[in-house]
């Protein structure tokens, strides 16, 4: 009993000494400007003759022997981990392309798992927010993570570029001051849902449409955007159905859809569910000849494998690969050599671009001293990222809007010409499959 007490006591004395030593100055420093702890701190550190930090958000100082520290945050465990892993790989390739170095400093990439939930994102963000050596962030993967974590990141003076969030709200002009540090290279669902609606109404000439989603925020939002746009164009949405994420037998739900007699069925789901729907849709009376479409969640060769022969003639919306200024095949080559397989999801190229935008902005604003010390003014970096115009990435020519949308929203509609997965090559100039048909 006494021994334990003794141990506890000595531990406490030690801890309180540390706290007393560091707690007080930190508190006084943070009190006047809790939002920007670096601003007051960084200038005190360096020799004023060389560099005066006047940035509103403070500066990151990188000593000659220290690495340039960036972080990736996003889901890396659980059922959605392939989404986060896919983007992480894009960032890693971007770093490889820099030779692993920035201005002679190694680039250090750390990762934080956001678990694809708001609280996971919040915790990851809090951890990143505490780290004053960070210059910039790439992430998150799931929109929920951003909702949970963005306030902490913005308030810490950091800026993050998400390669994979598609929720429209995140780059809404009225998104609020918490989002000041948030941009994305992924396209908002708003663009994609709208493109599909216009294609269906104007090109296919259908007037009655139905949608199916899988309960994920991605699919739910996408089908809702589609439904709103389609109705606005003058069409009628006759059924909006949903299935569970792990559903396999789609006949019941398709039967319900068939009862509403749509001419067009839109299911912006993922590969598994998409495969089952396509496999079974032609078996359902009333849907034998209905036109079907999906979105970028199933824009992969895997989908052809899962969906089989019925995928022929199906429409898929996706970023317009034709509008990619080039470099994508080379990127894929690097990816496959590095990771021993094809990309896991659709946002690897967006992550690559996001990282490169960050590096470009960094190059612009970083102040390099003669001894190799780098100073990165944070507000300037944020502004530089927002000021990105006509950046030639592999996903297109990217320009960032004041509300943080950097994605080149060139959405195209493709038609699947051949259901053999080996023939999947949207880039092929001579015989593309799927083939771009709109716009």
């Amino acid at each position: 009993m006494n021994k334990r007490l003794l141990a506890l006591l000595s531990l406490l004395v030690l801890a309180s000494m540390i706290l007393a030593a560091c707690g007080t100055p930190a508190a006084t420093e943070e009190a006047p400007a809790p939002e920007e702890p670096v601003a007051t701190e960084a200038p005190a550190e360096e020799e004023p003759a060389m560099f005066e930090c006047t940035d509103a958000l403070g500066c990151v100082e990188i000593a000659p022997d220290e690495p340039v520290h960036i972080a990736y945050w996003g889901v890396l465990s659980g059922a959605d981990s392939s989404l986060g892993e896919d983007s992480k790989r894009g960032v890693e390739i971007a770093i490889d392309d820099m030779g692993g170095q920035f201005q002679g400093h190694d680039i250090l990439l750390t990762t934080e798992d956001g678990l694809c939930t708001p609280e996971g994102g919040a915790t990851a963000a809090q951890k990143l927010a505490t780290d004053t050596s960070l210059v910039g962030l790439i992430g998150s993967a799931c929109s929920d993570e951003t909702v949970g974590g963005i306030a902490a990141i913005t308030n810490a003076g950091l800026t993050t570029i998400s390669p994979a969030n598609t929720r429209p709200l995140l780059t809404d002009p009225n998104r609020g001051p918490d989002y000041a540090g948030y941009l994305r290279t992924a396209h908002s669902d708003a663009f994609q849902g709208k493109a599909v609606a216009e294609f269906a109404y104007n090109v296919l000439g259908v007037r009655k449409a139905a949608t199916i989603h899988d309960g994920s925020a991605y699919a739910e939002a996408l089908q809702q955007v589609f439904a709103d746009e389609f109705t606005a164009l003058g069409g009628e949405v006759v059924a909006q159905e949903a299935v569970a994420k792990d559903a396999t037998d789609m006949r019941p739900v398709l039967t319900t859809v068939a009862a509403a007699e749509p001419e067009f069925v839109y299911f912006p789901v993922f590969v598994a569910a998409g495969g089952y729907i396509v496999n079974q849709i032609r078996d359902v009376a009333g849907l034998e000849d209905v036109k079907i479409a999906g979105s970028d969640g199933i824009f992969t060769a895997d989908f052809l494998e899962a969906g089989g022969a019925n995928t022929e003639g199906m429409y898929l919306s996706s970023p317009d690969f034709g509008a990619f200024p080039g470099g994508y095949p080379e990127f894929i080559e690097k990816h496959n050599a590095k990771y021993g397989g094809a990309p896991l999801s659709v946002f690897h190229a967006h992550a690559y671009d996001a990282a490169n935008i960050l590096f470009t902005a960094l190059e612009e604003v970083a102040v390099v001293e003669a001894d190799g010390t780098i100073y990165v003014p944070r507000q300037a970096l944020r502004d530089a990222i927002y000021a990105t115009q006509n950046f030639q990435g592999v996903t297109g020519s990217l320009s960032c809007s004041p509300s943080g949308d950097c994605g080149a929203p060139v959405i195209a509609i493709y038609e699947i010409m051949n259901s053999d997965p080996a023939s999947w090559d949207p880039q092929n100039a001579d015989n593309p499959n799927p083939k771009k048909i709109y716009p």
Partner: protein
Amino acid sequence: MRTTLGERLTDWSISGFMWGFRILIVLIVVLGTFFTLQSGKYTGEQWIDFIVFGISQGSIYALIALGYTMVYGILRMINFAHGEIFMSGAFSAYFLATWLNTVGFVDANPVLGLLIPILFAMLMSALIAMLVERVAYRPLRGAPRLVPLISAIGASFFLQYTFRGFFGPGVYAYPPIKALEGEWVIFGIGILRVQVIVAIAAALIMAILYIVVMRTKIGKAMRAVSEDKDTAALMGIDVNRIIVSTFAIGAAMAGAAGVLYALIYRQVNFFMGFTPGIKAFTSAVLGGIGNIPGAMLGGMVLGIFESVGPALFLDGLGIIRPYQLKDAIAYTMLVMILLFRPSGILGERLTSKKA
């Protein structure tokens, strides 16, 4: 014993509430069914479709549930890592089947092309389960009941993320088997071939298991150990060896289920064992845990409820997008069955000592 009026009143109100709850669930089911059938939204053929699908799905649950129930029968422990054993079977079969497929073996010998991956998966699953038993469970014989459960949860995480480490977080597409594509028309109703094959294969495997348990020496020993470990040991049965074989046999069933699952769903992923594992555990409980025919029956019942439930019960009540609530239906049915039969469909009434 003397009871006051107040105590009796609370007793009454509680049992009244319980009956109210039972009646409510039954009412939902009956009313939903009535309205759905009355609306005539689905044809007879569609109902049969639902049931066939439910059977093939249920037979997979049943196969996995056997492993849960056998281990429970002997050790009174929930082997939480069993879902991961199922996943490891699917993964091993995936790599073999892909290779067999690329060399053209599957197209040349469809039967062997199907059988060899199944046997390989059974073998790998059994090996992994024996390893898990040796490392994570054997040192805990005789520990309080929940301790092996936590160890099993740990083993489950460990296996899951080992596979994620080995093979990455991506989805692997199980190779298509031409012989299984398309439908068979039975009594004028088209039924997917793959579903028929899966149901038949599962039935065959379960039949073999039943013979092993009921007719062979090792089966007899297993039953003896599950009746009473001490007495069995006195009779000269090597209890440890029997426990290991139980794990191995249960795991082999799960491995086979993994392949059958991959055949229907055509997808393999490190996380795939989680949901079917929970569902199979539910099936085992539904049938009466520790009871082998119970596990088979429980799996079938759960599979069919899941398939039929949303359309039959919820559609009629005007609940929108009922297919989202498929799992909720399954669990509601589970609760309902436990309300009427607290020890599962085929389970005996337990004394508190055993439970």
